[in-house]
């Protein structure tokens, strides 16, 4: 009878098997931790990354709104009365002051003909940006400008033959003259001033007045 030797063999085999299972379990546990750990890091990375991107985008948007625009002119102490007679304004085009009791609709309208100053100034009082162009501006440039204005709330565009600069952007008490429609200041003006803080009458409408004429 070889019970002693075979029982030792069996014990040894059992031990080997246990050791093998133990190694397998340990290596499985290591693998599990590795998977869980990697997944956690990836998930956290995604959430944090999204948060950082969102914060940076907001900061960039805020910057676009408040950045100083080079050569922007501002005017103070403008009157705000309704008058029924034509007004002589110091600036061309005017930046504010007395105006007609009726405003020019400013829902992103590109007017083919000049708009009376007194009506446009009332639109400025309601928070609109008035984009005007001189006679010499090319059709192409005019179209590029029109594409920026068309349908944009609280803006209007019209020809203004009397002005000296090619392109002028005006908000109440605020004016910028540029040569080309792709001057980066054009987009910044259009981002900052429609319904902007310069608006004397926040909440006023750019929809057509009743019986619009």
């Amino acid at each position, binding site marked *: 009878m070889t019970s002693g030797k075979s029982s030792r063999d069996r014990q040894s085999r059992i031990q080997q098997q246990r050791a093998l299972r133990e190694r397998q379990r340990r290596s499985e546990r290591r693998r599990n931790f590795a998977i869980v750990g990697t997944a956690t890091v990836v998930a956290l990375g995604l*959430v944090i990354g999204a948060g950082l991107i969102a914060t940076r985008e907001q900061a960039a948007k805020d910057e676009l709104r408040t950045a100083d625009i080079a050569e922007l002119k501002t005017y103070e102490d403008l009157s705000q009365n309704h008058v029924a007679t034509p007004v002589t304004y110091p600036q061309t085009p005017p930046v504010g002051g007395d105006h007609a009791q009726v405003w020019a609709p400013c829902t992103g309208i590109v007017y083919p003909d000049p708009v009376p100053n007194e009506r446009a100034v009332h639109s400025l009082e309601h928070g609109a940006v008035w984009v005007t162009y001189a006679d010499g501006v090319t059709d192409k440039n005019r179209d590029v400008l029109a594409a920026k204005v068309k349908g944009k709330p609280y803006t209007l565009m019209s020809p203004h033959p009397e002005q000296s600069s090619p392109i002028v952007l005006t908000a109440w008490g605020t004016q910028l003259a540029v040569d080309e429609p792709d001057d980066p200041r054009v987009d910044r003006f259009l981002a900052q001033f429609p319904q902007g803080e310069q608006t004397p*009458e926040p909440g006023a*409408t750019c929809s057509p007045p009743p019986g619009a004429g």
Partner: protein
Amino acid sequence: MSWLARVMIVVAVAAGMTAVGVASVARWGDEAARAPGSSSPEAGFARDMAVHHAQAVEMSFLVRDASDDPDVGVLAFDIINTQATQRGMLLGWLDQWDLPPNSDAPPMAWAGGEHGNTDPGEHAMPGMATDSEIQRLRESRGREAEDEFLRLMIAHHEGGVEMAEAVLERTRREEVRRLATTIVRGQQSEIAAMKALLTRKELVDQ
């Protein structure tokens, strides 16, 4: 539990905790330090001016129904749009400040009570039309309605200016100061326009 299930749970918990953390910082980091309280002048102004503006809108709709005078009509149209929108801004502030739009305090209590009226049946706020005045406007037509409207609205605007000046004396909050300042200037200019309209009509009579 399978290892896959464990992975999913850990990932979900981690993402959830991070999201809650980020949201908390965003929501409470700045907000709590800034919102005014329910008895503040800012909250009182927002509540009272929202009611005041609502009456201007009501009167403007009434005169547009009663008359087709183009001058009065466009003025009323402008008042409707501007004051209804500003009423929205005021209610929006209260919402942002997590305050109810109503309060038990009497009108203008936030201004130290000196602007309020001791007789609650009459003008509760500066310039507000009484119920009988509104009824008279509702029942009139044509020229009579226009005159009634202009007189009531001039008084209404004068009251609005008084309320806006009262909050300007009592707040440093930027957004409140901005709106109150535009109300003072804008309504003063509309008062001048309305007085001119009344005068022109009287001249036509002569």
